[in-house]
C-alpha cells in the first residue's frame, strides 16, 4: 500500500501518508489514488506527509507539482509535512523544500 489517505471528519482536509519508495514506477499509482480522492471530495486543504518515505527521486517533485496544480484548480491549498532530510535535499532542487504552498485566492468555488 504505497499511500494511506485520510479524510478529516469535516471533509475539509485530505492527508496523504506516503510510505516506502517514491520513484517513476510507484508514482503513477500514488497520483491516481490521490487525485481520485481529491477530485471526489474537493478538500480545502491537501496535506502530503513524507514521514514514512525511505527513498524519493525527482518523481516525488512531479507528484508535488502536479498536486499543486490540482489544488489550484480546486481552489484549495497544498501543504507538505514531515520531510526527512534526504527528501528535503531533493525538494530543494525544485525550490520547494520549505514550502507551504497556499492559494491566495481564498475560498474554494461553490
Amino acid at each position, binding site marked *: 500500500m504505497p499511500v494511506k489517505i485520510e479524510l478529516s471528519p469535516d471533509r475539509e482536509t485530505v492527508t496523504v501518508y506516503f510510505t516506502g519508495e517514491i520513484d*517513476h514506477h510507484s508514482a503513477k499509482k500514488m497520483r491516481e489514488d490521490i487525485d481520485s480522492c481529491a477530485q471526489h471530495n474537493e478538500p480545502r486543504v491537501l496535506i502530503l506527509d513524507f514521514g514514512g518515505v525511505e*527513498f524519493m527521486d*525527482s*518523481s516525488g517533485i512531479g507528484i508535488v507539482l502536479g498536486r499543486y496544480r490540482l489544488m489550484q484548480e480546486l481552489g484549495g491549498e497544498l501543504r507538505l509535512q514531515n520531510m526527512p532530510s*534526504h527528501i528535503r535535499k531533493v525538494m530543494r532542487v525544485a525550490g520547494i523544500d520549505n514550502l507551504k504552498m497556499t492559494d491566495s485566492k481564498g475560498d474554494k468555488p461553490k
Partner: protein
Amino acid sequence: MKIQNRMRVSFPARSVNESFARTVIAAFAATVDPTVDELIDIKTAVSEAVTNAIVHGYREELGQVYIGASLYPDGRLVVRIRDTGCGIPDIKKAMEPLYTTCETGERAGLGFAVMQELMDKVQVRSTPGKGTTVTLEKRLKIKQ
C-alpha cells in the same frame, strides 16, 4: 588510476527495475563503507539516470539498460548508465532544469539537476538513433 573493484549489470528497461538498479549500485558502493548520506545520494542519482533511459531512451520499445560501476583506491565511485535507445538531439537543452519532453505534465524535468546536485560530476554522451551514456562520479569519504 588502477580500479579497485568493478561490476556490470544489465536488465530490461521496465520501470520495476528502477528499484533493482539503484539497490545494486548501493550494495556495490557499500563495500567501501560510505556514509548513509552518500549512499542515498548515489541511489537517487542512479534512479534518475535509469528512469531517463527507460522513459526517454526507450520511449516506444523495450530495450536493455546497461550499468557499469568502478571503485578507485582514492574513493571515487564512477557509474555508467547506458541505453541504446533514441538518443538526445540536444544534450544542453535536455540538461536544463524544468525541461521535459514528457507530455503528461507529471515529470518535473529535474532529473539531471538532481544528478548534478548529488554527484561531483555528471557527463552525458549521446548519439541520436544510437543511444545515451550518463556517467556519474562521486568521491566517497573512505574511512581508514
